[in-house]
């Protein structure tokens, strides 16, 4: 499909006001599904975590998972929402083969949580308060795999396979109110908001929060209106934008695409759109109108959820620290400059640094390890840094040995390589690879004398007060010691011996 024409971004922002709205689906990590006892387990053999209820067999009935309600209330509280005294489920009726009952059981007019807000801080430090309309519970559908077509989409496929393992997995859908005033920051705000939600549900441990697995999915609504206009423009809904970068790019793309159409006198079609990360554009999905008729009605097989005030307060007590407040606290405790802290935060390394500090490393050394050497290694291996086979405790242990002078930075890097290669704990790597700073000064002095003797011109220079000439001797000594010497001590000894 040909790319649509786009208006340059700055020009689009200049002319139009951007209004965005975000729907984030969070897959809960409860042990069992929303309405039956089947395991909620990613990656099982297809159609093994199924029963009459999640297969929608005749006669089966749903029963609500209490833990899912608890997680949903927790999410609502974390988003500063009101919790409903009574929230009923409804049926959203439509036919699709991934939907076992051909209706989705979902909260509709009585969400469990409503009227909240969350503070979102952009990279520049600019803050937005995103208004939350509601957070409601619903069940996920099965997973379709379309076989035989070129695109993997249903169009052109020979047949499709359905895996109902995901059918009935509990979801919480968090819906914002329209977000105004972000202007050129709208794409960044959208992505940052999704990230904040992801961080919150991860911190609360109510979701595995892995976007690449679809644990957190975003639909982004975008509309434009002429600056000063009162009436909202027609919106499009870009579905399932499944990485933070995609959220930002998709919103930016829609702004540019819609701006071009509107500027040329055209009108926006209200529709869903699909984001193609590989090609960097959206394409039209199905037309969507507010009159889409899902024939919602209250689910007669379930009684309304009526959480008691005591239960809500109990859940409130279990909420972890608000991520924004936590960031503020950690930056103060660590004494990081804004740039240093943002580097850690933007690389998603708060947990790692915090745990490394807790294991005894200084904040600065922890930061340097994670944003420096370890980030480089992860990048080189093509894995995410949290997937590296080294724990914060091991990093702290290595740092302690450096601080004690038993390892140099260079040797320490070898120790890390050994740990990553699966050679065991740092102490075992040091033992088996024979990595330890040479503290036997006799050996050092012998090496220094040998080096000075072979480079008489250098000796002269040092004696003439040109101390930087010692560098050449340090190199030779370090080579002789296979790098396992403390360079600073070697330098001191060279100057002594040169006298």
């Amino acid at each position: 499909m040909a790319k649509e024409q786009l208006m340059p971004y700055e020009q689009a922002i200049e002319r139009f006001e951007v209004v965005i709205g975000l729907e984030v689906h969070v897959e809960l990590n409860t042990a069992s599904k929303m309405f039956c006892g089947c395991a909620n387990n990613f990656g099982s053999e297809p159609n093994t975590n199924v029963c009459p209820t999640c297969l929608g067999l005749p006669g089966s009935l749903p029963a609500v998972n209490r833990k899912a309600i608890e997680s949903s209330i927790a999410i609502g509280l974390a988003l500063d929402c009101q919790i409903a005294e009574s929230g009923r489920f409804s049926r959203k009726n439509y036919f699709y083969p991934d939907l076992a009952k051909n209706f989705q059981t979902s909260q509709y007019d009585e969400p469990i949580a409503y009227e909240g807000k969350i503070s979102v801080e952009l990279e520049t430090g600019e803050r937005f308060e995103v208004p939350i309309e509601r957070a409601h519970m619903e069940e996920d559908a099965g997973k379709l795999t379309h076989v035989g077509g070129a695109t993997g989409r249903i169009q052109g496929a020979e047949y499709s396979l359905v895996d109902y393992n995901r059918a009935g997995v509990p979801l919480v859908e968090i819906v914002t109110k329209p977000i105004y005033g972000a202007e050129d920051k709208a794409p960044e705000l959208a992505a940052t908001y999704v990230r904040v939600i992801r961080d919150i549900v991860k911190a609360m441990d109510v979701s595995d929060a892995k976007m690449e697995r679809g644990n957190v999915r975003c639909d982004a609504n975008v509309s434009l209106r002429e600056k000063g206009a009162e009436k909202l423009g027609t919106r499009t809904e870009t579905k399932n934008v499944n990485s933070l970068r995609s959220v930002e790019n998709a919103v930016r793309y829609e702004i540019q695409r819609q701006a071009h159409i509107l500027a040329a006198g055209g009108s926006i079609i209200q529709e869903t759109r699909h984001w193609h990360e590989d090609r960097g554009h959206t394409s039209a999905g199905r037309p969507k109108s507010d009159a889409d008729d899902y024939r919602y009605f209250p689910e007669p097989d379930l009684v309304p959820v009526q959480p008691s005030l005591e239960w809500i307060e109990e859940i409130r007590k279990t909420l972890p620290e608000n991520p924004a407040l936590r960031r503020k606290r950690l930056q103060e405790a660590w004494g990081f400059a804004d740039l240093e802290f943002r580097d850690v935060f933007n690389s998603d390394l708060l947990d790692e640094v915090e745990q490394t500090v807790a294991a005894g490393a200084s904040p600065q050394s922890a930061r340097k390890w994670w944003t420096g050497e370890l980030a480089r290694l992860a990048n080189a291996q093509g894995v995410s840094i949290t997937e590296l086979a080294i724990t914060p405790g091991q990093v702290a242990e290595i740092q302690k040995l450096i601080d004690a002078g038993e390892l140099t930075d260079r040797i320490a890097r070898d120790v890390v390589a050994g740990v990553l290669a699966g050679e065991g704990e740092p102490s075992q790597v040091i033992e088996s690879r024979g990595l330890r700073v040479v503290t036997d000064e006799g050996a050092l002095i012998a090496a220094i004398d040998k080096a000075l003797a072979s480079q008489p011109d250098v000796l002269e220079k040092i004696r003439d007060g040109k101390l930087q000439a010692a560098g050449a001797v340090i190199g030779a000594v370090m080579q002789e010691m296979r790098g396992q010497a403390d360079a600073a001590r070697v330098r001191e000894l060279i100057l002594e011996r040169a006298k």
Partner: protein
Amino acid sequence: MTDITSSTAAELATLIQTKKASSVEITTAFLDRMESLNAKTNSYLHIDRSNALEQAQRADQQLAAGKASSPLHGVPIAVKDNLTTTDAPTTSGSKILEGWIPPYDATVVTKLRQAAMPILGKTNLDEFAMGSSTEFSAYGPSKNPWDLDRIPGGSGGGSSSAVSGHLAPIAIGSDTGGSIRYPAAVTGSVGAKPTYGAVSRYGLIALASSLDQIGPVANTVLDAALLQDVISGHDPHDSTSLPNSLGSMVTAVQAADIKGLKVGVVKQLSSDGFQLGVKACFDDTVAKLVKAGAEVVEVDCPSFEYAVAAYYLILPAEASSNLAKFDSVRFGLRSMPEGNPTIERVMAATREKGFGPEVKRRIILGTYALSSGYYDAYYGSAQKVRTLIQQDLAAAFEKVDVLITPTAPTTAFKIGEKVDDPLAMYLNDIATIPANLAGIPGMSVPNGIASEDGLPSGVQILAPAMQDDQMYRAASIIESLYHAEWGAPLISRVPNLEVL
């Protein structure tokens, strides 16, 4: 008819407990009768002799080992074919489920197995329980043992014709708008719809989830009470099932005392529109109650007038959604369309071929009633009527313990008489529908023979929600007044099917 097949369930249970007859002997007697007569009555869609006998054998072995599982231990039973069974096909009277063997047992079926009650077979019903005559069964209508040209009521006409024809001593039915009580009334048997939630619906193929309730079909009030005690109780699989037990219905029957009983006659369901013979039977019931010492007063339930209209919005709305799962993807019939078999076209072809006309009519009605722009006018208004009916009943039950009405406006009509007139068919349930809309218990007990056609009539007893014991108390009192007159249950007067 042997002594065995003309006995009540309670009598059979005593025979078994006292070792005067084995479950195998009793089950064999019924199987023999079923095999010779089911061709005439079409009560059963599925009979599996060896499976039923195996269950009977196990019941006998348990008893021999000293283990009596329930007061109905060893008594065989018929089960309506809209309850899932792992050892028998479950069709719900529809072609779309022909041959489907469920991978799980309904909770009620599990309870029957735990109670050591052998299942004789699966009984006929209107397709997905939509109907009042079994004429909408995809497998042909069941016949009324009182007159094989007449309907046995519906949707549970298979169970009512089995019990009244002595092809089963007792049976399971389901009641969404009268499908237990109406068939009981027109076949001279006893049928009870417990309070909504008293019996688990797990494994009952849903018609309208907020109205459906499983209950007993029996020869006598005591038999019904025995069975209700076996099948009721909380089930974690059914969120709408009541958390607490409603107590023993058998105790309520045994302790039934007319002293202080206050009975209300519903003004709206005692005069117009009832067949003269049915009205005469009802007046007789009232007279008997008064004579025996009950206080009888008239009560006003003005909203009952809207009950049928509200019911035929709520039921199709819920049914249209409940029946969406029949799409050929995971189970049941799959019909391939001509041309390109896309999923939409396969679903459409399957539903076109698999559903009968009444099911299609109600799916269309319900889809329309839930449509955007019509929801408030139809489904919304119907729910309001439901509240009004509950309020009428609450006010009535402040004055009386139970309400009574004729169960059905007429005795059994002839097969084919109303099949092309849906509105006439829907009015058969005019007296039974309010109980489903309000979630209260309702029960039909025989109260005589209509003089003009010689067919049985029934009186309906309604009680407040969760006071099923009051309903059984009143039913037992009424039944004993009639038994005193007749000397035996009405059902014993059923013609000899073997010579018909």
